[in-house]
């Protein structure tokens, strides 16, 4: 089970902030979330949305192990 975290507008859109999802790969996890909630799936694949696995930004697909923290990060804005 991966621990999925949504930030910013993504959590408002999905209506949740944190969930456990069973998936062996990041690509499969994206498909699973998109099947359940197409609008969220589209937003996760949208421009400027980055993914961090255990707090490290990754590009493309990656295997997930038990307890991997998967964070979806929309465009950032502070200050």
């Amino acid at each position, binding site marked *: 089970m991966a621990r999925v*975290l949504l*930030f*910013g*507008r993504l959590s*408002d859109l999905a209506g949740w902030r944190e969930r456990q999802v069973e998936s062996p790969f990041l690509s499969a996890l994206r498909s699973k979330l998109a099947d359940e909630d197409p609008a969220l799936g589209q937003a996760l694949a949208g421009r*400027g949305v980055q993914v*961090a696995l255990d*707090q490290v930004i990754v590009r493309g697909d990656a295997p997930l192990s038990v307890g991997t923290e998967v*964070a979806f*990060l*929309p*465009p*950032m*804005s*502070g*200050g």
Partner: protein
Amino acid sequence: MTIRLTFDAFDPGALLTEFCKGRSEVGAVATFTGIARAEAGQTTALELEAYPGFTEAEIGKTAERAKARFGLDDFAILHRVGKIAPGDPVVFVATAARHRRAAFEACDFLMDYLKSKAPFWKKEYGPNGARWVEPRAEDHADLARWEKETTR
């Protein structure tokens, strides 16, 4: 070198006093304080979200780069998270260096980074509801200025 997130209101004057304490060699301290704007009543509150652990680590990487690039002796960064009322400080950056130019420039650089690249998500509340704010083109242009100056 401190990087901290806080849910609580802070006093930038007290932070500056603390930051300047015991410095007899640095010569220059520059600071920036960002304050939540009311936008003539259009913004009733800000909400800042961070990714604890990741946010501090990402800021730390850039702050260490700034330290090397500008030859800083020290820096302090404090950023609010959670709900923030107009008029309240949101962010405080202090830099210490032997000479003023380095202190000013490093402070400017760190703020440009914090505005458009640091892992924060900002929501503005107003009379017509809430909206997520993303960096403006100007914020990206501000940060891009530093990429051109590679000779420093």
